[in-house]
């Protein structure tokens, strides 16, 4: 396994571990610890361990992320899927697939910049 693949996999792993948002995860931990402190006031809640409160709160604060769709245009998504499928089936060489992914990023960026430029020229829209 080359370093490129290794770092890519590690990135994906870290993203999963902190649920894509370290700040929300931290706030969930903060809330969990606070609730754990207050749970000592109620005999019914007292047996619930601290880890359970922290896990529940982290989940609750990140629940929107689970249902949030990537804000990516359908055309770009289709194209990305097409390249990825082609790469997996061996129809596109890995090196070419990498180049195509970059081209799509470049095209998307150019598209968004041209839309932004149009908006600046005509802010009334």
């Amino acid at each position, binding site marked *: 396994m080359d370093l490129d693949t290794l770092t890519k996999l590690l990135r994906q792993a870290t993203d999963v571990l902190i649920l894509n948002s370290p700040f929300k995860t931290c706030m969930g931990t903060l809330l969990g*610890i606070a609730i754990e402190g207050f749970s000592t006031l109620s005999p019914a809640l007292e047996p619930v361990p601290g880890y359970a409160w922290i896990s529940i709160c982290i989940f609750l604060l990140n629940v929107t992320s689970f249902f949030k769709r990537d804000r990516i245009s359908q055309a770009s998504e289709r194209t990305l899927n097409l390249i990825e499928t082609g790469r997996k089936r061996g129809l596109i060489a890995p090196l070419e697939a990498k180049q195509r992914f970059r081209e799509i990023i470049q095209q998307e960026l150019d598209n968004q910049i041209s839309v932004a430029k149009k908006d600046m020229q005509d802010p009334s829209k």
Partner: protein
Amino acid sequence: MIIFSLISSYTSFFTYYATLTGTVIDPAPIFLPFEKLGEGNMPAIASAFIALIVDGLILLLGTVVKPYSYRASKDIKVAESKPKALTEIYLQSILEDSNKASKVISIVGIAYCLMQTTLGLEIQYGILLLLFSIVIISYIRVLLLMYRIRKGTYGNNYYEAKEIISFISEGSDDSDPPFGGGRNAFPKRSLGKNPLVDRGLEGGATPWT
């Protein structure tokens, strides 16, 4: 005024706790660890040492990684290309998120130790370890992203391409003088029901153009 309100809320918390549970807690134990430290109690010294190391490392991460990134961005001065500039902006946003997280975690760590000591409960070192690992993982994430950007390998796979395109669509630029305050640098207008039609002659992203 703030100190007074903090003190009053602190004492009212113990009064409320006493009325609810019937157990009276003496607020004095909050100073107990410091008294133990003064007495030279070894477990207290060890706990304080561990707490200082953990919080110190968290704060250190927040201060060390940031200048490294700024130093790197100074080298570039004028970005070689638009995608390069974009990935640098993305890196900064991820870094800011991690820095915010490390600050919150430091506060959480201190608040947790304080709360457990005050309520006379045992400090679970597993929770402190969990807090520390969240910060470590978030900075490993930043360093991996930095590495991939520096090596020029970022954005060459499905996962990252989708990630950065999504970031372009969500991106906003508050520093734009004519419009300012939360204006979207890349408006969402292109994300209509049929984006292919919306783009018109500007062209969509096609794989084999």
